[in-house]
């Protein structure tokens, strides 16, 4: 960030330096805050690369012109700028930098001092991102910024992550944040395209007051990334630098269930080795038929016909599917800066990772270029070009749905899984595909080429005002291939689907900035005016083929039938925006901004929306003399009000037809039957953009000599006239429509509290504890319909309830809450069997989350450890349903007794309790076996598989060592470091079935499946833990 600041200063310096040319020798001493001489302070003449350093006694000497400005900088201190006057001696005292003058990037790339902001902005230390082996930048953000929630869609490498900043607000729309790279927006959420090694800064703008100027795309928060190559020419201090970093990692599966190994296949404690369930007898070496003694396999495997096997546990039959994964991450960054504000930079990054099964891999190549040049004194051009090629591969997710509950006595790795003659799937159940076969003969590949080009032409009208034009284009081509070979029971024909998804975002922006307009001595004005035209273009084009001809050859010519995949769309947004900032002395900052957008998605009459914002920052420690001298080092109070827009998705206003060219076969003509049908979506010509509002207050303070550092925000966000995708009763002729209605409110609080227990910068022992606390509650305040299905018929929006509550089927109960038991079976009666309406069963939203990071450093060694705790939040778990139902985990190991469900007898037809002769309810005394309990009974209603998902996790530990300068003196290296880290090392979710080891973090549809579902476990690929060793060298 400082580099940018320097660049500004240098530019301004250049402009004012003309006409001065009296060189003389200046000397002086630089002191620290305690009055002691400070060695090693960098001193340069502003606007040049000429400079020196203070010696051991803090002295310096430099030839300089009168009127020039000396910039003095030292790590941990504020940069001092002193103008050379007539005196030949210039002494200076450095002031400790407690981030007071930290420069942050706000909306539309406008740089501001952090203290002047009336809203929350969090910056992430790029070193943290750089040191992780994780290829996806978003995953690294987990727990690094309060108010930011990251969920991975699964443990396969290349799974898209779901990032939510300050809760979900939109019921039907996207809640994903905007990514802005080097000042311009990029398309979609493919955060794993970004090269983590090339990140110079990462800033999160959380609230609407911060993001108003970005327009509607910024409504869910903005992740602002500045790349290293994009900073070329920004700093003249580093003339030539090469940075090399390399990380090697291994990973392993983190959450396999703990399986029981006492019982095998069968039902009701009786062996049947053809069953799915493992409810058979206890293992005792019984002789049972061989698993492949099946008539279908008589010709391929005659040896198994009539053969027998020993009924025994195969303890590792699931874990043997998994291997150690590995990864290698390498990057080289070269930059060269020239005098006069010119610079070039280039970097190459390469990632090569293999997941916990060999069929899952990720490869990425990043090529990044940046350049800045001063075309004339006043005109500069800054260009950034980023290219990435990402390849990911994995088998079908069907692989996992069967895998974790294969029978305990199935020796799957020592049995054939394919027919040696025709490669067809071979399994003990002919109606299921062998997971090993799926692993080998299905797959999904994604190859993406992404190009991002940004060019920024800036004209400095004066040293205070500038005019700039920015053009950016970000386009990616995602080539998707997924295939399922034939010769298995799931996909008789086999298929190959190939399509290219192209997404292009083009952005034009003109900005006029005028800073530091003085109105008297105390008042300063800063003005920004801008116009923006953004266009998003997407298309899908490809082919779906069925009827595989030659086995295991993936080319469309190898299939008998083909169907096109074709779709495209475009949406444009025009925006005009302005920002006015009033600074009063150095303690009051008022910012007012507004933007008007015109969008192409609604009908013309509804296409315009204006949304303003305002914020105020007050710094009492600067306001009142003496306040800063007490225990308070720094205090800032802020209040912000922000609004934003959400334009509807394209093509929702006009009625369309669904056309199907292959709906059926007309047997009279033997042609395919073509149908045209009215779409079941009822368009809404009156749909208009929705308006989001947010009020935010905050406090930032440093106490007791920086011992405590607190940043706190509280906010309330209201989204009214939501664009809702609402179900319609099928009897209206339509099943879905879109309306503007309803209101969702979020109240939230974010606290960052750092305790600097020991502070001995540079030399001694340092210990800091950083705590982040995030809590919010999102409530559906108004809804014009009874409910809206948010995801999968499980997460709903219901008036008065939390966003996304679970609604579903449940156990029937009497008016006192006793379970109703069917008197004929001893099993619970289900609500849906009685035709009872579904009800609310849980809330997937966590109550709060807390992250605790301890960082210790001593001399060159730094150790840090991050713990995350999430309190509350329910999950609906299909894993629990399948694993408990099949009796494979230790949760269902205690099974030889019988169970009596506590409850009263009820009539299975009416749902009324059955009364005895005295009119009393009758307690259930019917015994049932564990098999019935779990298989047929407990898992069949939604209520039975909803759990509290509170979880504590050791997110990571990292140990790094900075190679001391002394050791590097005789090498070409300027600096070097080694980092060892371990990620996702341990977790415990105490309220989930104990031995299932379900990881609540890999739940839910990720951005792959852009729904707003939450807390849904559809048996995703398990999560992983990772260990890595990284080396970074500069020279």
């Amino acid at each position, binding site marked *: 960030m400082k580099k940018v600041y320097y660049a500004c200063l240098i530019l301004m310096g250049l402009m004012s330096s003309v006409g001065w040319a009296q060189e003389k020798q200046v000397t002086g001493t630089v002191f620290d805050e305690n009055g002691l001489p400070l060695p090693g302070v960098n001193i340069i003449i502003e606007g040049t690369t000429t400079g020196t350093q203070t010696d051991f006694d803090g002295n310096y000497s430099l030839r300089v012109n009168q009127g020039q400005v000396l910039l003095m900088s030292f790590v941990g201190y504020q940069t001092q700028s002193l103008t050379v006057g007539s005196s030949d001696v210039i002494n200076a005292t450095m002031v400790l930098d407690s981030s007071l003058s930290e420069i942050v990037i706000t909306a539309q790339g406008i740089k501001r001092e952090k203290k002047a902001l009336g809203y929350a902005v969090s910056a992430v230390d790029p070193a943290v991102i750089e040191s992780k082996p994780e290829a996806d930048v978003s995953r690294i953000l987990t727990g690094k910024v309060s108010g930011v929630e990251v969920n991975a869609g699964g443990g396969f490498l290349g799974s898209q992550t779901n990032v939510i900043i300050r809760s979900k607000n939109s019921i039907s729309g996207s809640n994903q944040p905007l990514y802005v790279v080097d000042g311009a927006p990029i398309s979609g959420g493919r955060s794993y395209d970004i090269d983590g090694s090339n990140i110079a800064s990462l800033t999160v703008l959380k609230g609407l007051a911060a993001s108003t100027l970005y327009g509607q795309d910024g409504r869910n928060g903005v992740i602002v990334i500045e790349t290293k190559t994009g900073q070329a020419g920004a700093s003249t201090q580093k003339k030539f630098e090469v940075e090399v970093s390399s990380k090697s990692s291994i990973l392993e599966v983190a959450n396999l269930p703990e399986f029981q190994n006492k019982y095998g296949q069968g039902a009701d404690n009786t062996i049947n080795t053809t069953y799915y369930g493992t409810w058979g007898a206890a293992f005792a070496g019984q002789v049972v038929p061989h698993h492949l003694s099946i008539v279908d396999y008589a010709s391929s495997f005659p040896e198994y016909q009539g053969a027998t096997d020993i009924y025994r546990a195969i303890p590792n039959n699931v874990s043997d599917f998994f291997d150690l994964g590995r990864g290698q991450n390498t990057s080289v960054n070269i930059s060269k800066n020239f005098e006069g504000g010119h610079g070039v930079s280039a970097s190459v990054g390469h990632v090569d990772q293999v997941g916990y099964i060999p069929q899952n891999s990720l490869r990425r190549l990043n090529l990044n270029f940046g350049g800045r040049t001063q075309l004339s004194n006043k005109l500069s051009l800054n260009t950034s070009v980023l290219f990435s090629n990402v390849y990911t591969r994995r088998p079908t997710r069907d692989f996992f749905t069967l895998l974790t509950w294969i029978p305990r006595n199935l020796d799957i790795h020592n049995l054939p899984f394919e027919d040696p003659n025709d490669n067809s799937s071979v399994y003990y159940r002919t109606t299921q595909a062998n997971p090993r076969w799926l692993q080998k003969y299905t797959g999904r590949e994604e190859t993406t080429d992404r190009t991002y080009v940004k060019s920024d032409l800036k004209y400095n009208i004066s040293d205070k005002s500038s005019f700039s034009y920015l053009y950016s284009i970000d386009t990616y081509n995602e080539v998707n291939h997924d295939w399922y070979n034939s010769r298995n029971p799931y996909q008789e024909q086999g298929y190959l689907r190939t399509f290219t998804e192209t997404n292009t975002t*083009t952005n034009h922006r003109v900005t006029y900035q005028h800073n530091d307009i003085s109105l008297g001595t105390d008042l300063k004005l800063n003005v920004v005016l801008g116009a923006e035209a953004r266009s998003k273009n997407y298309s899908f084009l490809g082919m779906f083929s069925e009827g595989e001809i030659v086995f295991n050859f993936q080319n469309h010519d190898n299939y008998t039938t083909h169907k096109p995949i074709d779709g495209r769309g475009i949406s444009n947004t025009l925006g005009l925006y302005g920002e006015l900032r009033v600074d009063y002395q150095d303690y009051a900052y008022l910012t007012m901004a507004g933007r008007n957008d015109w969008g192409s998605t609604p009908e013309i009459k509804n296409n315009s929306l204006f949304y303003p914002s305002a914020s105020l920052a007050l710094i009492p420690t600067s306001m009142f003399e003496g306040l800063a001298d007490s225990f308070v080092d720094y205090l800032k109070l802020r209040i912000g009000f922000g609004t934003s827009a959400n334009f509807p998705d394209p093509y929702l206003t006009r009625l369309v037809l669904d056309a199907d060219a292959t709906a059926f*076969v007309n047997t009279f003509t033997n042609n395919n*039957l073509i149908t045209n049908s009215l779409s079941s979506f009822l368009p809404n010509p009156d749909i208009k953009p929705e308006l989001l509002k947010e009020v935010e207050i905050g406090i930032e303070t440093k106490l007791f000599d920086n011992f405590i550092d607190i940043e706190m925000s509280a906010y309330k966000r209201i989204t009214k006239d939501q664009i809702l995708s609402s179900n319609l009763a099928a009897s209206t002729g339509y099943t879905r429509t879109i309306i503007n209605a309803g209101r969702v409110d979020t109240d939230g609080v974010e606290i960052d509290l750092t305790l600097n227990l020991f502070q001995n910068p540079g030399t001694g022992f340092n210990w800091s504890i950083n705590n982040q606390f995030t809590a919010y509650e999102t409530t559906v305040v108004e809804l014009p319909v009874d409910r809206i299905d948010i995801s999968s018929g499980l997460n709903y929006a219901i008036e008065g309830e939390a966003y996304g509550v679970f609604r579903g089927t449940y156990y029937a109960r009497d008016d006192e809450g006793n379970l109703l038991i069917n008197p004929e079976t001893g099993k619970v009666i289900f609500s849906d069997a009685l035709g009872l309406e579904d009800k609310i069963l849980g809330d997937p939203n966590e109550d709060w989350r807390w992250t605790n990071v301890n960082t210790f450093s001593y001399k060159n060694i730094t150790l840090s450890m991050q713990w995350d705790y999430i309190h509350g939040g329910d999950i609906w778990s299909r894993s629990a349903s399948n694993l408990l139902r099949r009796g494979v985990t230790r949760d269902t190991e205690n099974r030889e007794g019988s169970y009596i469900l506590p409850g009263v007898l009820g009539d299975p037809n009416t749902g009324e309790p059955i009364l005895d002769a005295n009119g009393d309810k009758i307690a259930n005394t019917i015994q049932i076996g564990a098999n019935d309990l779990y298989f047929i009974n407990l898992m069949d209603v939604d209520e039975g598989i909803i759990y509290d998902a509170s979880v504590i996790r050791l997110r990571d530990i990292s140990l790094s060592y900075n190679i001391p300068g002394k050791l590097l003196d005789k090498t070409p290296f300027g600096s070097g470091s080694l980092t060892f880290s371990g990620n996702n090392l341990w977790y415990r979710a105490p309220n989930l079935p104990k031995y299932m080891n379900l990881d609540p973090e890999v739940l839910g549809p990720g951005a792959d499946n852009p729904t707003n579902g939450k807390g849904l476990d559809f048996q995703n690929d398990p999560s992983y833990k990772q260990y890595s060793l990284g080396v970074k060298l500069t020279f």
Partner: protein
Amino acid sequence: MKDMFKFICRFSPGIILILFSLLSCETTELKLQDSPSQLTVPAAEANFVLNGIQLNMARQHVNLSSITNRIVRHTNQFGTYASSARTSTMNFAWARAYSITSNLNLLEDLSTVLNLPNQVGMGQVMEAFAYVNLVDMIGTAVYSEAVNPDEFPSPNLDSGQSIYDAMYVQLDEAIENLSATGSVQPIDIFYNGDMTRWIKLANTLKLKMYVTSKLSSPNPSAINAIVASGNYIKEEADDFQLYYSKQDVNPDGRHPFFTSDYITSAGTYQSNQFMYKLRFEKSIKDPRLPYYFFRQDLRHPLDIGEELGIGDDLLPCVNFNYDYCYIGDGYWGRDHGDDEGIPNDGVYRTAYGIYPGGGAYDTGNNNAPTVEVNSHLRGAGIHPMLTASFVKFMLAEAALPAPAGIGTTGNPRTLLEEGIRASMFKVADFSGVPMESAAVNAYVDVVLADYDAAANDQERLAIIIDEYYIALYGNGLEAYNNYRRTGYPDLQASVIAGTAFPRSFFLPESELNSNDNPDLVQKSLTDQVFWDTNPAGFID
């Protein structure tokens, strides 16, 4: 050079603005409301809209048959009635009906320009059929306020009786439209554009409705009028049925019975009772037996188990002494309600045969798993909705004197015989495997002997409905209607502790979840539809 720089610098803002406007014009267009990927409504092609209606109608019927096949024991019901009649069970059939209505409205709009009376008439017949099915299944439906989202975003239900009444009127209108000459020849997957057959269908549908509602509103004269006109489904060529094809992909046009049983292995259990009825109940085998069922293995399942060394694993029912369990002669399905775990018996259990699913004919020689059999129809089956034989049985029932029937014209005994023969003829003719006429005659003789021996009209009705039930195989919907109306045939009770027989189905959960009308409340499975005036608990 310096001057030029100066010039550029001075006018940079202007240059930037010009660049902006030049480069950004493709991004400033705001009139982009029409999707480039979807057809607009005026582009609709009338025959394609009609074909959409046809598929919706047929799929509704197929869906309802697959639900009711299990309830009436044409195939095995796994578990209780409650698990076969869930709150979501009617979602699909319900949505299909309203899709028909909304597309029929579109067709009518197109007709004002193009003159498409035949397409509209066909649509009206199919719409009537779809609503009658909803009334028969659920007892009620949204009708008068349907498909008008602006006026009725939360429509009310109409009574079953009022919908029936409205459909009689609509069918008369349809007949008028079908008799007119339009400007566009329809594309038609049922009758290949033969309007005379559509008119027969319209009359036959009315006939079916009159017979179905014979208890609540007997109307013998209406039936007599249709019979007298002779303009109803009388011969095989008039049969209203969906034709499947052997095309296996893009689209898969094969019969669901075939895809269930002939691709990886048999995925459906046949009903032991139904197979018993055809194989053992009468003194002679039903000639349709080898057409309806295909035995993959003629051995006793326990013998197979012994050979495989898995004992009785293939036949869990032997441990529970269920009624039929294994009926003998290689016929091997499941008893009604049997919900034991499913063994790996897909290559042994009895599968669907050649009729109506387009599978294999069971010759009784060299039987083999379905996946290894080559001589089958590859799924080119039919789904029978209203056939000539069904009509004979309906008329036989109606011709019985009240109260068993309603005393319409015709001789029930003759009609019963004609019904059986028409069914046999159709099965054999469709399958292309001749049926021995001696066997048919012998079978007819046995049934007629029983009929003649019957003590009263109720017993005669039982025989008529029993034969109708056998002929209906594949069409569970009519069998379900018959069972509730007459109580016949006398069906096997569930072998497990069950729940009450569903006299109607739940309102679809999809409708209740999205229709905010407070008057819409869920009903009970024991509620009876308007034409079912029989006592509660009269069937199980």
